[in-house]
C-alpha cells in the first residue's frame, strides 16, 4: 500500500452503549460494541470487514459515518478529525461518505418515487438546479443498469436486486469518495448477488471509490476486497491483505471461521476446526483476550492480558498471544 494516500485513519475507536436498569433507569453497565479498533483505509481500495452477528461490524460502519457518536477515539477523514464535529460541521463532509444498506425493502421510502429517492440527497446539499438534478438522476439510473423510466415508479415495483441498484444510485448522487456497504448483497439471491457485486466493482473503477465492505459471507468478502479485517466481540482480531488472510490466517478465530465455511465442492472436504460454544455477550466480555473462552489454543496468559494488534509481515496484523513472546512485555 506504499505510495497510496490514506483516506481514513481510525484510532482506538470505541462505541459503548449504556445498559440501563433498576427503578431509576441508571446506567448499570455497557455493551462494548466497538472496543478499541484502529486501522487505515487507503484511497481506491476495498477493505472487507467480516465477523459473526454481534461482533460489532455494523456498529463500526455506522460510527465511522457519525450516524452514531463514538464514545472515544479518533476518526480522521482526509486529514480532519471528524469524531467530535457538530452536525452542522458534518454536513458538508457527509456528501463524501455514503452508505448502502442491507435490506433493500426497508431502506427505501415506499411513498417516494425512485426519482425522488435519488434526488433527495441533492436537495439536502443544495448545489444543483432542478434541470441538473433531473439529468443527474437519469444518468445515475443508467449507470446502475436501470432504465430512465424507473424514475417515476415506486420501490414496490422493483425486485430486491433492482432495489439495491436504486440504493447504490442514491449513494452515488453526491459523488462520494467513500462508501460503506453494510451487508449490501446478503439479502439477495446468489444469481442476483453476483450482478450487484460486479456493478459495485465497475462503479469503483468509474468513480474512483473507496469501499468499506461489511459482510458475514467470507466468499463475498474475499471476492471484492483488497484487504480484510476480522472482527470478534468488538475487537479487530486480524487485518491484512486478502491473500494473506485467506491463505495464511494467523489468528485461531480466523482459522476456525474460514474452515467452517461450507464450500460448494464435493471433492474437497476440508478438515474443520470446530469452535465450542457461542459468542459471549458483549455486555460482559471475557477478561483478557475476548476469544479465549472458545479458543482451541488458549493458555494462561490469554485469560489475563489483552493482546495488541502486532505486525506479522507484509501488512498483516494479528491480535493474539501466540505471536508475542513473554519478553515483548
Amino acid at each position, binding site marked *: 500500500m506504499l505510495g497510496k494516500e490514506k483516506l481514513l485513519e481510525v484510532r482506538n475507536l470505541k462505541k459503548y452503549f449504556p445498559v440501563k436498569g433498576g427503578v431509576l433507569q441508571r446506567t448499570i453497565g455497557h455493551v462494548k460494541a466497538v472496543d478499541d479498533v484502529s486501522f487505515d483505509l487507503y484511497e481506491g481500495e476495498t477493505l472487507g470487514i467480516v465477523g459473526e452477528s454481534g461482533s460489532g461490524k455494523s456498529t463500526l460502519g455506522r460510527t465511522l459515518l457519525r450516524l452514531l457518536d463514538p464514545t472515544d477515539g479518533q476518526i480522521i477523514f482526509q486529514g480532519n478529525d471528524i469524531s467530535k464535529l457538530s452536525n452542522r460541521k458534518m454536513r458538508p463532509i457527509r456528501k463524501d461518505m455514503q452508505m448502502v444498506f442491507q435490506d433493500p425493502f426497508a431502506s427505501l421510502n415506499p411513498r417516494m418515487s425512485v426519482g425522488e429517492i435519488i434526488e433527495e440527497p441533492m436537495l439536502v446539499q443544495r448545489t444543483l438546479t432542478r434541470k441538473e438534478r433531473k439529468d443527474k438522476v437519469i444518468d445515475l439510473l443508467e449507470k446502475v443498469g436501470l432504465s430512465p423510466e424507473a424514475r417515476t415508479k415506486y420501490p414496490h415495483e422493483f425486485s430486491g436486486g433492482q432495489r439495491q441498484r436504486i440504493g447504490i444510485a442514491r449513494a452515488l448522487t453526491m459523488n462520494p469518495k467513500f462508501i460503506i456497504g453494510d451487508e449490501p448483497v446478503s439479502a439477495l*439471491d446468489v444469481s442476483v448477488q453476483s*450482478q450487484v457485486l460486479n456493478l459495485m466493482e465497475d462503479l469503483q473503477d468509474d468513480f474512483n471509490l473507496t469501499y468499506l465492505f461489511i459482510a*458475514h459471507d467470507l466468499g463475498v468478502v474475499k471476492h471484492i476486497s483488497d484487504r480484510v479485517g476480522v472482527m470478534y466481540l468488538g475487537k479487530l482480531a486480524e487485518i491484512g491483505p486478502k491473500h494473506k488472510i485467506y491463505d495464511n490466517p494467523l489468528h485461531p478465530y480466523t482459522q476456525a471461521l474460514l474452515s467452517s465455511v461450507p464450500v460448494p465442492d464435493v*471433492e474437497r472436504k476440508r478438515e474443520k476446526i470446530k*469452535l465450542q460454544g457461542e459468542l459471549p455477550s458483549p455486555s460482559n466480555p471475557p477478561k483478557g483476550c475476548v476469544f479465549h473462552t472458545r479458543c482451541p489454543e488458549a493458555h494462561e496468559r490469554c485469560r489475563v492480558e489483552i493482546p495488541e494488534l502486532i505486525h506479522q509481515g507484509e501488512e498483516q496484523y494479528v491480535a493474539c498471544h501466540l505471536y508475542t513472546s513473554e519478553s515483548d512485555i
Partner: protein
Amino acid sequence: MQEKTDSKQEIGQKKTDVLLQVEGLKTYFYMEQDKVAKAVDDVSFTLKKGETLALVGESGSGKSITSLSLMRLIPSPPGKIIEGSIKLDGTDLLSLSEKDMRKVRGNDIGMIFQEPMTSLNPVYTIGNQIAETLMKHKKLKKKEAYKRAVELLKLVGFARAEQIVHEYPHQLSGGMRQRAMIAMALSCDPKLLIADEPTTALDVTIQTQILDLMVEMKEKFESSILLITHDLGVVAEVADRVLVMYGGQIVEEATAYELYTNPQHPYTVGLLNSIPNLESDVERLESIKGTVPPAHRFPKGCRFAPRCKHVMDKCYEANPDLLEKDSNHKVRCYLYEE
C-alpha cells in the same frame, strides 16, 4: 443362520427402500384478478430410507411450498394442492383426513424451520413444548415426558439440560434454539425430518455445529432428511442427492457428487459459477441476467429461457421434459435431448 437373516433383511429393504414418493404434485395459489400462481408445478421425486435429499433453489422457486405441501400445511384459500400424490411409507397423505394428518405431523414427519424464534412459542418453556409433543403423540405421562425431554436435550448437546427444560426461548441464543427445535422435531422418532433453511439464520461457526448434529441425529434415529436450502455450500456438505428447482419445477436431479462435478442445466451451471468461492479467485463473477419470474407470470416454453445463455428458438415454444441422462442424473433442457 447369519447369512439368511442378512439376505432376508436385504429383500425387506428392497421392498421398503423408498420412504417418500411424490408424484406429479401441483400446488397452485389462486390470487385476486383471477391470477394463478403455479408455485409447485408437476413435481415428482422419491426419497429413500436413510437418505439426505436436498431441495435447492432461489427465493420464489417453490422449494418451501413443496415442503409445506408434504406436511399439508398450505394455507387454503388461496393455496390448493390440485393434483398429485404424496406417499409416505405407502400411505397417501393427500387422502388422509385432517385428524389423521395431525397424527402424521410430528409423529412420522418432524420439521425444523428457519427462524427458531418464531417457530417456538415464547410463552412456554422449552421443556413444556417438547413434553407436549410427547404427551400428545406418544401418550406419555407428564413426568415421563419431561424426563424424555431432558434426555433429548442432552442428546442434542445441551450440557445443562435439566435447567434448559425450565427456560423460555428468549433465554437461549439462536444456535441453542435451533438445537431445541431439533430435539423437538426428533422427540417422536420421525421417519422423515424436513429441514427448511435450518442454518440460514445462524453464524457460520454455529452452522457447522448444527449441520453436524443433524447428520449425527439422522444416523442415530435412522431417519431421512429432506433439506431445503438456497446455500449450495451447505448442500455439498451434507446431501446425498440434490434436486434443483426453478420456477416451480425440478430442472435437474442428480447425486451430489454428479451435480457438483458435472452440472448440466444452464441454470445450475450459472448458479454454481456465481458464488464467490473461497478456493478460487476470479476477476469477475459470472451472473445470470434478469431475475426469477413471479409464479403467476411464467414465460411460455422453458421457464428459464429468458435468462439462459444457450437459449434456442424452441425453448420459447414448449417446456422441455425432465429426462434421464443416465441412471443418476436427470435434466430438463433441450440441450441434452437427442
